[in-house]
């Protein structure tokens, strides 16, 4: 059956997932996208958000990622995250701390481009905060 493909979630610190999955939802830069098998080869950047992985066995796992990019091929999908954490291990506290560090960084930032980037990151994080707290 061609409906399963390999999904890998890697952060610089470790390999989180490397399994056969049937469906993955990733928070791409231009909106959420669902990746199924036989997807056209795509390369996209990721914004902070929730990745939903549906394993071939039907089990659903959620991970929170903080930006990165994804390399999608018909038979595989590799997500290189700057940082990732299983959704059930994420506490509002960690997120809050992250938001605060970003705010502090924003206060120190000088370049306009850098600032815009941080502001965008902050918005995404705040939005994420809303989702996680609601869940």
């Amino acid at each position, binding site marked *: 059956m061609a409906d399963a493909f390999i999904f*890998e979630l*890697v*952060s*610089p*610190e*470790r*390999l989180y997932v490397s399994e056969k999955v049937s469906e993955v939802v990733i928070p*791409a*830069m*231009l909106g959420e996208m669902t990746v199924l098998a036989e997807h*056209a*080869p*795509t*390369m*996209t*950047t990721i914004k902070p958000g929730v990745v939903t992985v549906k394993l071939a066995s039907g089990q659903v796992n959620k991970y929170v990622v903080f930006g990165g*990019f994804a*390399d999608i*091929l018909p038979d595989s999908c*590799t997500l*290189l995250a*700057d*940082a990732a954490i299983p959704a059930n291990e994420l506490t509002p506290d960690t997120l809050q701390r992250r938001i605060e560090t970003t705010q502090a960084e924003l206060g120190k930032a000088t*370049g306009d481009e850098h600032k815009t980037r941080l502001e965008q990151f902050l918005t995404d994080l705040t939005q994420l905060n809303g989702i996680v707290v609601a869940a």
Partner: protein
Amino acid sequence: MPSLKDLKNRIASVKATQKITKAMKMVAAAKLRRAQEAAEAARPYAERMNKVLASLSAANAGNAGAPLLLSGTGKDQVHLLVVATGERGLAGGFNSSIIRLAREHALKLIAEGKTVKILTVGRKGNDVLRRSFKDNIVHYITFREVRQLGFVQADEVAGKVLDMFNAGEFDVATLFFARFQSVIAQVATAQQLIPARFETVEQPAEGSSVHYEYEPSEEEILEDLLPKNIAVQIFKALLENNASFYGAQMSAMDNATRNAGDMINKLTLSYNRKRQAQITTELIEIIAGAEAL
């Protein structure tokens, strides 16, 4: 000649030293295993990053508008040397071999009339390099307070390097660290960071025909990835360095423990001889005294 008491004291002190080096060796071995695991865990990310960037940059190499991080500034007048060393000593030749490589590199560049700037990561390298290149050191980052080396630390170093590059403070950046080969072999290595160099990946003939869709555009992704790549490379180097450090420390402490053992044997031998000599002398004295009566 040292007296019996002196010898006894020395044996006790060498034994105490041996205990310390033995404990340090054990600690280093435990930490080495963790450092090695961390270095291995980081490998898949770095490999994939390299693969993606290699194919992206191959496609973009000829473009006039290619990002500066990839193509360089077109000059090589000002060099930045990022020297990553350990925070502590007692690790054999670990720190000094990195420092020696960096120093040779710096002297060669200076002889060629280039400007050299040095960014030191880690206390040991900073202390030593400050002596001979006081005016060249532009920044110093230490992870003394850091217990577990994370990506955040690499990001801090990378941020500093990128800030300097964007401000046009240097043209070429080279990273110095010790590559971990095995517990007994750590090789001091120089790696060029900017302009970026990628290990060429052979692509299978059919693989190269894959046409990617890019979201957003190819250039934007490349521009986003290149700075990230710097951080990843530095992270990789820091992890390798960490593993090398503990490897070097372990073998250094192993040697020290063995040397201490040899020394104890030698001292014990001369202690025993000396004691025997003393007993003999005493006996001779007694016998001589008895005969005289």
